[in-house]
Every structure is written in structure tokens, then in C-alpha cells.
């Protein structure tokens, strides 16, 4: 196409050719084509490339994969919304509570079970009604702490220890980490989030004076590593990664008590330019092989029940058989619907004047 372009002088011709080229260039089939994936940037992107995309392209050399990094799930949704009439992306990876909105906004389309056979092996927590994109990663809420913290925390309760006053980091709701902590405390106090989160809110009100920041900058991993903060709630996969990177300055504790999963789903964009190749990719990402790699390299708990990761890696996730029962069952669809109400509660009852 480029060679054609060089020969043309007229700008109009140039545009016309580029237009035509774009249309005819993509040929889509289950084992050939070119797909665009939108997901988290940074560490996730680096690891996802290594764990999934590279082996995938080795297996399907005729499918060209481009990864488009986005800041967070909301950014991802915004990008999909604005490109709704002519989407560029084929596959989107985002938080379940956001993908639920996207499903309902007709931004995604259901998968074909015949083309994504691995769907049926996905853990029930990661199944989504209507054959919409299921869970591709399970992450869990953990505690991270500075190496000076002694003794090492084993329960969420450590956050309420007065000796860490002003040294605690809790990313506030609507960040799901804050939401998660509220749900955990709510459940521990015997509450049911679909009715009321008052018990959880009460606990967080008690915590508020100890919190250094509700919006960590740059992020809690950095703050704990640098010693600016002592204790923080965090996501396991990243925490494990940074703990290794920090050479012991920052450590991770998967609390003995309840925790929650953070679920990322992998979705097929509605009117995707290459739905066939995209579903091949989705199927591959959900497969036992790449799910095991996920756990081994990124410490995400596998979503595919048939995945066989190493025990060492599994032990560093909440999917550890000893801990899996402590994972709370959360209906993220309900959470999504409560998000705004809870935001108001947090603002007015927890964050205000804290």
C-alpha cells in the first residue's frame, strides 16, 4: 500500500486509496487476520504480552495481534463508547463491573460457544450470563507492608492497629480496592451488601483517621516500598510482582480471613472488524495452558478450572486450595448498580473531614 502512496500526488487520491486499502486489507478467519486488543497498560501489558500474546502468535502465525494499552477500565469503556459506530478494537479486557455496563450498553457481543469452547471450563465465579465475555483473570485483595512492619500482618485487622495511624493507604471507592475492603468488613460484621453496607461503612469510619491517603500517588506499591506508608491494601498480582522487584523492601500478606476477587473479563467488541480471529484469541487466552502461565508468571488465580499451574505460584494467590473457600461471592452486577450510591456514602460519611 505504501508503494502505491508514493506514486500519488493528490492528497484526495491519497485519502481515497488509504480508505480502500483499509477496507480490503483485513481478511478474517479463525486462523488468519489481524486483531486489536484493548486492556491495561504497564506491567499487565508487559506480562500479558509474554504470557499470552507471544505463545499465541507462535501457534497462530497468520493472526497479527496489536495490544492497545489503556489507563484503566473506565478509560477503556470511554474509548469503546466513542468508537462505537466504527470500532477499531476487537477484544477488550476490563473489570467485570465495567464490562457489565458495556454489555448492557451494547458495546460487546456474546461469544459463540462453538468458537470459544474453553468458556465452559471457566470457574462459576467468572461466568457471565448470555455468553458475554467471561473472566480471564482472578485477582484478589491483599495487604502489602513495608519491611519495617513487625510482626508481619496476617489479618485485615492490622489496618486498625493504632500504631499505624497516618501510615495506612486505602484507595477509596469507586476504586474496587476500597469497595472490596468495605464488602469484606461488611460480610465479617454479618451484613449483606445487597441490602446495606452500613456495618462495613462503620468499620471504615473507624479506619479513616489512620488513613494517610485515599488516593495514593504515584500508587500504594511505591509508597510502601519507599517507606512513606507502612500498610496498604492492594491487588495480589501486582503486589507479588513488585514484592519480587523490591527485593524484600515490600512484602505481601494474603490475609487468613475473607477476601474478594477482582475479575477481569475478556470481551468481544460489537461490530469487531475481525470477530473470527478475535474469538480464536479469546479461546486461547481462556485455555488451561495460558491460564496456567498467567498464574506462574503473573500470580493471577486461574479462571479455567482445568489449568494446572505450579503449586509454588498457586500458593501465592488466593486460589490456593487452603484459601479459596475464604473468597467472598460477590455479584459485580449488583455492585455496579450500587456504585453511585456507595460513592455518595463514602464521600459524605467516610472521606469527608477524614
Amino acid at each position, binding site marked *: 500500500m505504501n508503494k502505491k502512496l508514493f506514486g500519488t500526488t493528490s492528497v484526495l487520491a491519497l485519502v481515497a486509496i488509504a480508505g480502500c486499502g483499509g477496507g480490503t486489507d483485513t481478511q478474517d478467519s479463525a486462523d488468519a487476520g489481524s486483531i486489536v486488543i484493548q486492556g491495561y497498560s504497564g506491567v499487565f501489558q508487559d506480562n500479558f504480552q509474554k504470557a499470552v500474546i507471544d505463545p499465541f502468535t507462535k501457534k497462530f502465525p497468520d493472526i497479527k495481534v496489536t495490544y492497545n494499552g489503556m489507563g484503566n477500565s*473506565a478509560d477503556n469503556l470511554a474509548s469503546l463508547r466513542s468508537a462505537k459506530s466504527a470500532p477499531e478494537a476487537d477484544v477488550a479486557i476490563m473489570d467485570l463491573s465495567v464490562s457489565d455496563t458495556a454489555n448492557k450498553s451494547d458495546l460487546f457481543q456474546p461469544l459463540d460457544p462453538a468458537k470459544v469452547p474453553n468458556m465452559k471450563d471457566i470457574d462459576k465465579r467468572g461466568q457471565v450470563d448470555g455468553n458475554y465475555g467471561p473472566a480471564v483473570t482472578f485477582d484478589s485483595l491483599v495487604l502489602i507492608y513495608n519491611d519495617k512492619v513487625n510482626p508481619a500482618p496476617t489479618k485485615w485487622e492490622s489496618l486498625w492497629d493504632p500504631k499505624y495511624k497516618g501510615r495506612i493507604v486505602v484507595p477509596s471507592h469507586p476504586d474496587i480496592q476500597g469497595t472490596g475492603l468495605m464488602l469484606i468488613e461488611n460480610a465479617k460484621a454479618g451484613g449483606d451488601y445487597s441490602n446495606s453496607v452500613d456495618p462495613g461503612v462503620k468499620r471504615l469510619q473507624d479506619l479513616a483517621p489512620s488513613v494517610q491517603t485515599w488516593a495514593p500517588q504515584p500508587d500504594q506499591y511505591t509508597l510502601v516500598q519507599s517507606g512513606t506508608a507502612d500498610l496498604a491494601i492492594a491487588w495480589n498480582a501486582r503486589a507479588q510482582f513488585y514484592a519480587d522487584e523490591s527485593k524484600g523492601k515490600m512484602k505481601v500478606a494474603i490475609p487468613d480471613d475473607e477476601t474478594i476477587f477482582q475479575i477481569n473479563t475478556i470481551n468481544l467488541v460489537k461490530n469487531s472488524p475481525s470477530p473470527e480471529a478475535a474469538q480464536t484469541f479469546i479461546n486461547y487466552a481462556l485455555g488451561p495452558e495460558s491460564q496456567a502461565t498467567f498464574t506462574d508468571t503473573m500470580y493471577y488465580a486461574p479462571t479455567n478450572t482445568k489449568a494446572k499451574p505450579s503449586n509454588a505460584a498457586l500458593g501465592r494467590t488466593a486460589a490456593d486450595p487452603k484459601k479459596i473457600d475464604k473468597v467472598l461471592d460477590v455479584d459485580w452486577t449488583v455492585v455496579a448498580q450500587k456504585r453511585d450510591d456507595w460513592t455518595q456514602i463514602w464521600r459524605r460519611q467516610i472521606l469527608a473531614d477524614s
Partner: protein
Amino acid sequence: MTTALHERPTKTIPPPAEPPRRKLRGTVLALTVPGLLGMLVSFVLPLVYLLRMSLKTGDSSGMIEDTVSFHSYAQFLTDGYYWKMAWDTLLLGLVVTFFAILVSYPIALFLVRTESRFKGVLIALAIAPLLTSSVVRTYGWIVLLGNQGVVNKTLQATGLTDHPLALVNNKVGVYISLVEIMMPYMILALLAGFGRFSTDLEHAAASLGANRWKVFWRVVWPLSMPGVLTGALLVFVLTISSFITPRLVGGGRVFLLATEIYDQATATLNWPFAAAISFILLALFGFVIVIYQRALRRIESQ
């Protein structure tokens, strides 16, 4: 004789080829077209889109309903919480502007008056922070104001406090860093304003019996008013629309209109509400600019 005078052959200078007015106007129009088009595409259309968005209805899960209703505006205006947020925003703008004037004025005055041969360098230094992004400077403040930062360490070393003061992750930090971030704008505006009067005015006032203090309040200050007003407007508008600094330094405790727009758009996903707040903020701008214009007209008419 007289006729001869009149008949002196006048060298007829062709009337200067006066470009026909219409042509000139055409040129002017043609020159403004790219700018106008740019404005249309980059400002007017998005604003129309935003207005339309503000009339839709969003729900808490991020779904957007295609309605024409003032639901989002009503949601804002009927909730005291948002009125307080608007008030906090206004207050932030006023206080930051006040302190920005307070700290920038002496610097600007010095820069205008100094006869140092490094004057140019000094002025460049004063406004150099504009060359770095405010994100970088905000991170700088997070470090400086933190528990282990220079400020707290100094306070403790001098025995003024025995425990670190909470200077960051709260409103105090937002105020401090915004004042500093706004200073270069204020200094620039003041420098432009100071350029308008000569030191002879101060000499004249002094010769008439005014001491330094009176010279300042009766002559220098009133005459720098246009610069002060320009700077104040600039800083006020930039402050109440700033969201990066409040987010980075606020520790998740500082809620302002601009950060709320960001949160509603990116976290709560309630775009119609975000759009409605944008228009409310725009109205606040309009209100302030009207007041500013009035003040300016009063000063100019003097």
C-alpha cells in the same frame, strides 16, 4: 499670474492603488476562517455534544439513557453536598488567587525594578516553572510537604512541632501547591501590568510628601490594578478548573467541581452528570468574568 500658478503642471500621482474594501474584507475573512474552523471543531462542536450529553440520563452503573431532561442538573442543584462542593471550589479559587497575588507581587515588583544585568535571566527563572508540567511540580510538593519532607523535617528540627504536620493528602497541601503552581502566571500578568508606569510617578509622590508606604498604596498599587486583575482572573479560572493537583495532593479527601467532573466521567461513569457539572462550572466562570469585566471597566474609566 494666478492662473499660471494654478496651471502649474501637477505631477499626477496615481491615487494609491487603494485595495477595494470588499477585497480587503474578503482577505480578513479568509484569514479568520482557519481559526474559526478550528474553534468550531475543537470547541463549539464538543460543547454542543457536551450540552446534549448533559441532558441525557445516566444511572449509577454507567448506563446512559437517551433522554432530554434536566435530571442531572436537578441532581446537582437539589443536593446540598454539591452546593458545598461548589462553594469549596469558589473558596479555593479566591484563597489561592489572594495568596498568589501576595507572594507574586513583591517578586514581580522586584523583577521590574531591578537594574541587575541578570534581570533577563531572573525573569526567565521566575516563569521557568511553566516549562515543566504541573504534574511534575505537584509531585515535587508531595515530597516537600510529606511527613519526611523538607518542610516537616525543618519544623521538627527547629522544635516548632514535635510530630510531622499533615501538610499533604489534604486541603492544606492542595492550597500550598496550587499557589506555587499559579505563581508564574501571576508574575507574568503583573510584569505586563507594571510595564505601564514609570518610577517618576513614585518620585513625584515622594516629593509631595508620601513615605514609602503611602507611595505604594496611593500610587503603585492602584496603578498595578489592571495587572493584578488580569492575573487574578487567570489564576482564579485556572485554579477552579484544576483537577490534577487536587487529585494528586488531596489524598482523596478534597472534592471540587473539576475533580468531580473527572470522577463522574472516569470512575462513576455517569457522563450526563459529568457534562451537567461542566456546564455549571462554565456558568461559574461566566459569572466571575462578568464581575471581572465590571471591575475592569470601573478601573479603566478612571
